[in-house]
């Protein structure tokens, strides 16, 4: 053993006047921060183990606990910040890649917060969603260029579509990266509200086949859990090429998380590491993608739309165009603030581009090529509230995926320790002691409530714009204005500056 230079990130403070020594905190902390000493009838804390997940704070019945940033400071240095220094200590100790969870937390510009929505005043009326119908139903899938009628009868057959009661879906989060109860929560919420959850690359657990109508089943580079029944079970199939939190690299579910259920669902031996390669080994170019798309369509007798998900990287627009032309019905773009269960820190924080710019670029590019209407565009990567969704749709998205927001609804506290498997909220864990902390009935209610609340807000904002159907907002960039953006940003976003 040598000296570790790790210092606590958090300071756990216990108000002894309030503490009743019920020891709920002791039982609830999977990191074993709290300890009860019988001999002295007192509680103590190990600050170093605290990840700041607030489980103890939330469960403490007398609010005797609070968690603060550990006040230890290095000599002030704008270049060598505490984070930077501590990362070096850690790597010097471990010799390994720094891992993290959830999305990029660095202070890059958040373009959502530099875009403002319009509302009607005088020249046209706003619409009150409580009095007038307000439609947010959305169909994802390939659309024809035109409809053909013969003798007044429609002759065009519409390709299979994903019907959404609101343009918000739950992002791909695999069973494995999150608990079965978390997946169940999202599946049930999707069913209740009329939208989709996405299996991620974790396969579809037997218990969840009944939610197939609300599932988008993913085919990723590891092909975990992919078999004919799986493909048939979902409403759509998504080929995952990349993920915003880790563009260009694969996935790794450590063997200790591969318990019986995960092993059966993924069709891999219990306890074995589930390694998703960085590329699909049968896709080394766009024409290979086309083959996979059509293989999946063949396998499902052309009854399921096929989506392709990519991370937002520098030339995302050209890639998206290629994907549309390769036959994808839906293109999913995941921005660089998208979350994950585990990713190398440096990749997460430095690779990819913001979803707002990627979306604008892709939408514009597809329109310039006159193919935007043929495919649906779904965006992901830190959609934090209903206003973000409004802005995404106005920029050109058909729908959005929410991952982190959905997990927050289930109780996630953004401690970014998903990769440890010790999620105290029962979400990013396979430990049966922790998994049961998420009651999927409650989880489903909370996730469904979030969607319902956002739906209300979307309707309010649409009504304010004098719009009563969400499609009239789609690509309607006149409904946006930029604030505090450079001319170049505005040009890429295709929006005017506020005041223009």
């Amino acid at each position: 053993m040598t000296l570790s230079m790790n210092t606590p990130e958090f300071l756990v403070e216990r108000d002894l006047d309030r503490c009743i020594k019920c020891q709920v905190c002791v039982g609830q902390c999977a990191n074993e921060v709290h300890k009860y000493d019988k001999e002295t009838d007192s509680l103590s804390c190990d600050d170093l183990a605290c990840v700041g997940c607030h489980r103890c704070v939330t469960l403490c019945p007398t609010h005797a606990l609070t968690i603060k940033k550990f006040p230890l400071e290095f000599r002030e240095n704008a270049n060598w910040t505490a984070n930077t220094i501590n990362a070096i200590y850690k790597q010097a100790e471990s010799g390994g890649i720094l891992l993290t969870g959830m999305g990029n937390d660095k202070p890059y510009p958040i373009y959502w917060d530099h875009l403002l929505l319009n509302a009607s005043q005088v020249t046209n009326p706003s619409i009150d969603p409580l009095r007038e119908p307000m439609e947010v139903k959305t169909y994802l899938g390939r659309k024809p260029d035109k409809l053909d009628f013969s003798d007044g009868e429609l002759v065009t057959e519409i390709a299979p579509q994903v019907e959404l009661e609101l343009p918000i879906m739950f992002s791909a989060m695999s069973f494995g990266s999150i608990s079965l109860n978390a997946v169940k929560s999202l599946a049930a919420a999707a069913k209740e509200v009329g939208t989709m959850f996405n299996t991620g690359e974790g396969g579809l657990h037997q218990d969840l086949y009944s939610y197939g109508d609300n599932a988008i089943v993913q085919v990723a580079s590891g092909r975990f859990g992919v078999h004919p029944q799986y493909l048939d079970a979902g409403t759509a199939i998504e080929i995952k090429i990349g993920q915003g939190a880790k563009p260009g690299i694969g996935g790794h579910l450590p063997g200790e998380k591969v318990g019986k259920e995960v092993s059966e669902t993924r069709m891999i031996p219990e306890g074995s590491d589930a390694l998703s390669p960085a590329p699909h080994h049968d896709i080394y170019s766009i024409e290979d993608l086309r083959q996979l798309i059509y293989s999946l369509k063949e396998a499902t007798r052309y009854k399921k739309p096929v989506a392709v998900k990519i991370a937002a990287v520098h030339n995302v627009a050209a890639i998206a165009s290629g994907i549309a032309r390769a036959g994808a019905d839906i293109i999913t773009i995941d921005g660089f603030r998208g979350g994950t269960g585990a990713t190398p820190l440096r990749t997460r924080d430095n690779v990819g581009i913001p979803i707002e710019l990627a979306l604008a670029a892709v939408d514009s590019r597809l329109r310039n090529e006159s193919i935007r209407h043929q495919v649906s565009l779904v965006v992901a990567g830190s959609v934090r509230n209903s206003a973000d969704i409004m802005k995404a749709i106005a920029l050109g998205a058909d729908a959005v995926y929410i991952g982190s927001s959905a997990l927050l609804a289930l109780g996630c506290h953004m401690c970014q320790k998903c990769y440890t498997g010790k999620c105290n909220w029962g979400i990013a864990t396979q430990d049966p002691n922790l998994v049961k902390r998420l009651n999927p009935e409650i989880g489903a209610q909370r996730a469904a409530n979030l969607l319902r609340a956002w739906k209300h807000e979307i309707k309010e904002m649409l009504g304010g714009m004098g719009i009563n159907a969400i499609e009239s907002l789609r690509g309607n960039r006149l409904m946006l204005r930029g604030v505090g953006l450079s001319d170049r940003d505005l040009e890429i976003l295709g929006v005017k500056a506020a005041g223009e």
Partner: protein
Amino acid sequence: MKKIYAQEKYCIGCRLCEVYCSAVHSEYPNDLVKAFNRSKIVPTPRVKVEEDRPLSFAMQCRHCDEPHCLKACITGAMYRDEESGAILNDAERCVGCWTCIVACPYGGIFRDESKSKVVAKCDYCLDQGDPACVKNCPNGALIIEEGGE
């Protein structure tokens, strides 16, 4: 009648049910801090969390249709509340002989440590609205409803 049921799969073993049960049966039913820090002896919770991780559940009186405790009670302290149907123990009449404890196959009756020789059992918090254990279960593991799980 409505009964409290434990859903094992959602019980997280936090014991908040016990904490709140003790408090509402203390001199300070609405103040946890006082209930625990000022009571001479904190009342024994009438709900018991049993745990053998990952299994855990909270257990209290089943308020049986054919209550063994009531039949066994030597003093007549144990009675059925006519309005609610709950099986209640009249602490004034109870002598703490523990016959009900040995009679109850559910293990749902406890010795009340805060009083001398009286049993403590679930009273549905009849004077408090919904039972405190149900109200304060953070994970919906205790539900009050007609019929079983």
